[in-house]
């Protein structure tokens, strides 16, 4: 349980810190200190439980189907790292309390720092690989937020993004690798994976897994060639650099390699991959560190180099090397964190990190200088300091393993060169900052920092000394516990002593020191230390990253134009084309064939009818561009022929509906045409280009293809027998159960009334939308005026409100049409009521009624009609929906499902038998809704001619429209970089 607390506590602390007010610096710092100290104490308490290879663990069930539990597991190695993380956290928090400026929003800083710590502890304590990846990615994210803490600095933003992209990308590779490990082992539990090393190495996925895990680890530990993000990340506040980018997060990569070492090590690939990357990082880091101007730059590259050293050791497939690696992880964390703190103090007190400006600070800040010097010495590998011990082990292993792998010369040489550079940059760091003539032109006058900043750094240096002098007493048992937990029975003999006699490693060490000092003196003499790194600066990985970023974005923008067209025509082309392909492809196996059902004998009349219909369709297609009215007329012709076809083939209901819809559609389109300024036919040269011709040809081909396809499909079905059983059911039960003779209507209002229900909803929706759109409609400027024909007419045909009849030529039409009105109304009710037994129904009835209303508008004009007839179409729509719905719910009273037909037979004296049914109520709802919707749409369009000024608009509205406008445009230029 305490184990859980160890991980949860920092997160809780983080959340709590986030809620502190921005100015609460001390509160936040104290809070963070208590959390980190508490964690440290917790970790220390666990030491007895992890000794002798024992493991403390806690497990909560989470996703058992996928073998994933929340599983925290602490062994010796994890304990060591947990101690590192929590202790270092405590020191850094202490340091940061004084380092951070009062203007900074400190609670946010501590919040992220604590979250990071939690995530780091999570990595360390994960007993499950997936869970490890979860925390792994969390460290990347918190690191992102911490690097970008001063996000007003462009460099900080860029560095943060670079770091997060590299590490998250690596994390995703790791995820894949881990998933594959899980697939190989059959479990994601660390215990199982570590136990299955042989199986893993024998699996054909092993190389892939190795590469993927390595990618995760190397990106995280800033190893070559992914090292470039780390120096950039130095824009972060120094506590962050000290904590994340030297002591802990970058160690996660090597931690992982060590953690999975038993499962993955032992192959040539492992050696070449890991040692290779490590060696490259070791050299690149060491050389680059020598040529940095920025104090933190030196430390960053040296971190790369030292992590390279650790990586190399891990790759050597040797148990002793592993011990050395783990040992050096601890050592590096102590001296490097101390150095970062020192560099931070220098920056804090002088206002600069530029080594060219810094000089002779030892006078003003002797304590700081002392502490930093000792730490740097540890980094250089000076005896009696911890760095020396692990470096010696490294030299030894380079010789041993070099001998074993045939790299007798290469490995020790690499080690020595790196050692030399390490000495050089360490000496340079101390010499150029603290010694020499005191600098005078610094932004701030240097002085010793407050004790709070110095103490953490000094404590770390004390640790360096203690370990360096008394390794077996201090780090010895702890290291053994840790190594035991990794290696178990394979733990080799090793001795942690300062003096091992004159051995080959010592020789190498001396050589390196000598070389390093000479190198520094040489460089100093030639004033070369401030120059860009020779050769290596030619390949600037971070620059490449930026360029790559821009290339990717620009490239994506270009490719996106291929993937996403902005032209409607292309989209429709794709749909039609694909449908055609799909339709044809379905016949790939058996081919198309007509059925053997006997055909109806050809009726010449029908042929003639469709000669006309086809002519209308083609004519409409041809005229639609410039002669809209003609096209509309021809469309009407095609519609009538379609309607006659329905009638011809025994579908009177369809014919009725089609004809009424036809009339309303024509009126609707004409009402719309009023607001569509005329197109003047002209000879567009663009239409004659070969490309335009080719496009038209393609469209013709597609149209013909689609037409042929549709005809072929239709013919194939028409010539096959109809075996629909549901038809039989519908016909059989229509009269007896559903009480209707018109089976189509019975389907519409009873069997499948739910379709009708949805259909009227669609009509209602569209009417509402049309009305809403038209209320805000801005017509084309060309068509906003009263049509000229009307302007010229002194006696408007309609619209004089008090006149009973129009004065102009509409007088007699008005008399006739108004007389027709009630008659049409009667016809509409007739169709409504008889629908169940004969062609008709609510829909046709409603359309007839709506048309009756619309023709009144046509002869009377909007104002005149509305001064005498208040129609509330929305009301009709709403009532229609409610009525239809009520007809549905009525069935519940009889404990029947929604829309079940309920009927009552009444016997009324004189009148005879009456059959009342909820079906009629439903049809009444349809009727009302159709009236309302159609009238609403048509009248709303008609109202466009009746306009008045509106009120001013609102800024929000503009903003909203602006946002939409921006969303619609994809700018291809890239802003970042």
């Amino acid at each position: 349980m305490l184990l859980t607390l160890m991980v949860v506590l920092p997160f809780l602390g983080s959340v709590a810190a986030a809620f502190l007010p921005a100015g609460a610096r001390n509160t936040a710092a104290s809070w963070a200190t208590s959390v980190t100290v508490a964690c440290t104490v917790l970790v220390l308490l666990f030491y007895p439980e992890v000794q002798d290879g024992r493991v403390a663990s806690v497990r909560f069930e989470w996703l058992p189907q996928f073998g994933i539990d929340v599983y925290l597991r602490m062994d010796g190695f994890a304990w060591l790292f947990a101690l590192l993380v929590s202790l270092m956290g405590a020191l850094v928090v202490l340091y940061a309390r004084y380092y951070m400026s009062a203007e900074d929003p400190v609670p946010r800083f501590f919040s992220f720092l604590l979250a990071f710590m939690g995530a780091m502890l999570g990595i360390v304590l994960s007993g499950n690989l997936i869970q490890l990846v979860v925390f792994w990615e969390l460290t990347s994210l918190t690191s992102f937020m911490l690097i970008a803490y001063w996000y007003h600095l462009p460099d900080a933003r860029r560095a943060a993004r670079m770091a997060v992209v590299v590490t998250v990308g690596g994390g995703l590779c790791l995820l894949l690798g881990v998933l594959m490990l899980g697939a190989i082992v059959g479990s994601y539990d660390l215990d199982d994976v570590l136990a299955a090393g042989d199986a893993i190495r024998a699996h054909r996925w092993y190389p892939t897994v190795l590469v993927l895990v390595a990618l995760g680890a190397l990106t995280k530990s800033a190893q070559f060639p992914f090292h470039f993000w780390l120096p950039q990340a130095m824009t972060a506040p120094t506590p962050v650099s000290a904590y994340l980018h030297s002591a802990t997060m970058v160690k996660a990569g090597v931690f992982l390699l060590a953690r999975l070492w038993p499962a993955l090590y032992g192959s040539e690939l492992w050696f070449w991959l890991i040692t290779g990357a490590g060696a490259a990082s070791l050299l690149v880091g060491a050389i680059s560190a020598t040529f940095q101007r920025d104090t933190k730059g030196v430390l960053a590259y040296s971190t790369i180099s030292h992590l390279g050293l650790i990586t190399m050791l891990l790759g050597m497939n040797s148990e002793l090397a592993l011990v050395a690696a783990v040992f050096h992880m601890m050592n590096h964390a102590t001296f490097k964190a101390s150095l970062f703190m020192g560099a931070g103090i220098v920056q804090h007190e002088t206002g600069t990190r530029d080594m060219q400006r810094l000089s002779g600070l030892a006078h003003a800040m002797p304590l700081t200088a002392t502490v930093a010097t000792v730490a740097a010495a540890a980094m250089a590998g000076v005896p009696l300091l911890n760095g020396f011990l692990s470096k010696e082990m490294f030299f030894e292993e380079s010789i041993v393993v070099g001998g074993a792998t045939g790299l007798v010369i290469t490995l020790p040489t690499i080690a020595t060169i790196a050692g030399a550079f390490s000495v050089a940059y360490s000496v340079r760091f101390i010499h150029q900052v603290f010694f020499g003539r005191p600098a005078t032109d610094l932004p701030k006058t240097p002085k010793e920092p407050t004790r709070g900043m110095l103490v953490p750094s000094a404590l770390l240096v004390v640790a360096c000394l203690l370990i360096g002098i008394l390794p077996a007493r201090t780090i010895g048992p702890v290291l053994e516990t840790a190594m035991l937990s990794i290696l178990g029975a394979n733990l080799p003999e090793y001795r942690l002593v300062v003096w091992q006699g004159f051995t080959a490693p010592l020789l190498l060490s001396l050589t390196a020191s000598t070389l390093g000092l000479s190198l520094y003196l040489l460089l100093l003499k030639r004033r070369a230390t401030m120059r860009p790194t020779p050769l290596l600066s030619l390949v600037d990985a971070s620059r490449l990253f930026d360029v790559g970023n821009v290339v990717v974005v620009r490239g994506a923008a270009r490719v996106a134009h291929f993937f996403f067209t902005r032209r409607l025509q292309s989209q429709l082309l794709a749909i039609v084309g694909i449908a055609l392909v799909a339709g044809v492809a379905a016949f790939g196996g058996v081919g198309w064939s007509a059925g053997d059902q006997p055909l109806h004998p050809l009726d010449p009349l029908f042929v003639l009818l469709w000669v006309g219909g086809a002519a209308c369709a083609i004519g409409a297609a041809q005229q639609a561009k410039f002669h809209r009215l003609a096209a509309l007329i021809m469309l009407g012709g095609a519609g009538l022929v379609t309607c006659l076809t329905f009638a011809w083939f025994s579908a009177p209901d369809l014919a009725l509906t089609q004809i009424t819809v036809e009339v309303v559609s024509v009126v609707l389109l004409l009402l719309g045409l009023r607001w569509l300024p005329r197109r003047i036919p002209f000879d567009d040269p663009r239409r004659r280009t070969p490309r335009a011709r080719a496009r038209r040809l393609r469209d013709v081909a597609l149209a013909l293809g689609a037409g042929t396809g549709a005809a072929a499909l239709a013919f194939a079905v028409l010539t096959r027998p109809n075996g629909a059983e549901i038809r039989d059911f519908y016909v059989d039960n229509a009269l007896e159960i559903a009480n209707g003779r018109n089976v189509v209507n019975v389907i519409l209002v009873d069997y499948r009334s739910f379709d009708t229900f949805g259909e009227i909803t669609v009509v209602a929706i569209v009417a509402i939308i049309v009305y809403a759109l038209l209320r805000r409609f801005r017509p084309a400027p060309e068509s906003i005026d009263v049509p000229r024909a009307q302007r010229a007419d002194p006696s408007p045909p309609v619209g004089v409100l008090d006149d009973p009849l129009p004065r102009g030529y509409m007088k007699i039409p008005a008399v006739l049409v108004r007389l027709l009105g009630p008659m049409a109304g009667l016809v509409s009710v007739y169709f409504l009521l008889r629908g169940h037994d004969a062609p008709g129904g609510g829909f046709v009835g409603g359309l007839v009624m709506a048309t009756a209303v619309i023709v009144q508008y046509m002869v009377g004009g909007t104002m005149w009609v509305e001064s005498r007839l208040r129609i509330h179409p929305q009301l009709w729509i709403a009532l229609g929906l409610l009525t239809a719905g009520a007809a549905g719910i009525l069935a519940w009273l009889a404990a029947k499902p929604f829309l079940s037909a309920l009927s009552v037979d009444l016997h009324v004296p004189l009148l005879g038998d009456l059959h009342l049914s909820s079906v009629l109520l439903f049809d009444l709802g349809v009727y009302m809704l159709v009236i309302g919707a159609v009238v609403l749409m048509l009248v709303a369009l008609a109202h466009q001619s009746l306009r008045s000024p509106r009120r001013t608009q609102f800024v929000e509205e503009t903003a909203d429209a602006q946002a939409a406008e921006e969303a619609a445009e994809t700018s291809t230029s890239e802003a970042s970089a």
Partner: protein
Amino acid sequence: MTALLDHLPILPIAVPLFAAAAMLLVGDARRTLRYSIAFGSLTVQLAVALVLLYQTTDAAAHIWPNGIGVYEIGGWPAPFGIVLVVDRLSSMMLTLTATVALAALVYSTAHWDRPGQPFHSLFQLLVMGLNGAFLTGDLFNLFVFFEVLLAASYGLVLRGLGTARVRMGLHYIAVNLAASFLFLIGVALIYGTVGTLNMADLLGHVEALPPDDRALFDAGAWILGIAFLVKAGSWPLNSWLPGAYSVSIAPVAAVFAVMTKVGVYAVLRLGTLMSEDAAAATILGEILYYTGLVTLVSGMIGMLATQHLKRLVSYSVIVSSGLLLASLGLGIEAVTPPVLFYLATSVLTTAAFFLLTGMTDRTRLVMPPAHEPDAQGDILPVYMAFGVTSPDPYGTEEEVGAAIPAAMAFLGLMFVCCVLLVAGLPPLPGFVAKFTLLSVVLETAPVVGARNAGWVLAVAVLATGIVSVVALTRIGMRLFWSPAQRRTPRLHVVEAAPVAFLVLVCLGLTAASGPVMRFFDATARSLHDPDTYIETVLGSRVASRTEGDAQ
């Protein structure tokens, strides 16, 4: 009470319908009343959805033994009447819809639902359409509900007008009208060949078809499938999507996140009900796989290419569609539970993200209109006869709720959460979805490894993660960290709470991954067992038919 329980399956359709109709009767001025109706309706829907969800689980096996409930509308049994079928999949979709819609509705009251526009009615009808599409067991009825939801979405896309919206709206409408024609033709062919419209009734008839009739049926099924793929935003039929979604106002776009999934749902639902033919399934699978993969890639490229957050989120919708289709195309049954998990997450994620964009849009500095609106364009039509007195459908700006402090911090936090969700990074459930998916894919990789399909998909899934991070950090940094040209918006609790709510639901999903995944396991089993579905829906009809065959 028990009587009402019997009618539960119809409520997700009836409740929003009545609410919408009732709101049409309520005048523009009575905003609170309309809002109360809308809110009440969605609350009821969420409750009903949860009850239905419960009823489909094994815990409620006494209610619906197979986890499948059938509601015979009009009292006509399948395949003659239209039936609503509640199973785990549909009840999950109902729950998702209600959740997202509720969040979007609350959000919309901040200032997106000004009077004069029938926002709430259309919103309810959109939800009704979605619910209907998820519930119906009838192919043509599915078309009708597609039309209901599309019609409502047409209006909602256009909400707010402006040239961009109308242009994108026109494209959206035109494309969907074309797709609707395909839908109709597909359904017609299916009826023409097998003589039934009930989804459960298809399989029995299809298997009895002679080969050349079967080709006709296939043509219908393929054409129908294209209509679904258009809705699902599958490449190359998805060019409309980024435009239409990104011009929509935030709460609408949030519900559209569910809408895209209707296409996927239809594929999922009908895929197993149309054919048990292994060869056909393989072809279908390959097509789905490759289509999905290309869609996924196209979405990623779009994400990388765009500079605009809402557009980016729209592309992420495409990515998620691609991922879903490609995964389904693998033809591994075990992949279905993670796919469903992913589907649920991506709906919630995208919805939350769209809602968030509505707030981040306001961090920009708004320039007042540069020119006086032209006199002609601002002459609006009058509708005295309709009982409308004001020519201006927009009422006065009225702030709702209290502004929340630390607006930027909240936005930033939510943004990060959304990024994690979209990128599939821990600790949010996007990660769970992705790793469970990959876990299944990799476990079965040796089996299906011949095609390398699993590997390619795995890499693509991981690529989406890194692409999301690359693209979103770029936009996020500009949005939150670029010092100039930004203002801190006033956020209202009603806007902030829904986003936080959706993110919390996501967190809840992560925490409850185990039980959720168990539910999806059961869902997948039920999906891959069409016989139970068919038997439950057709009931005794199946028995009688087999008897008839015997005779």
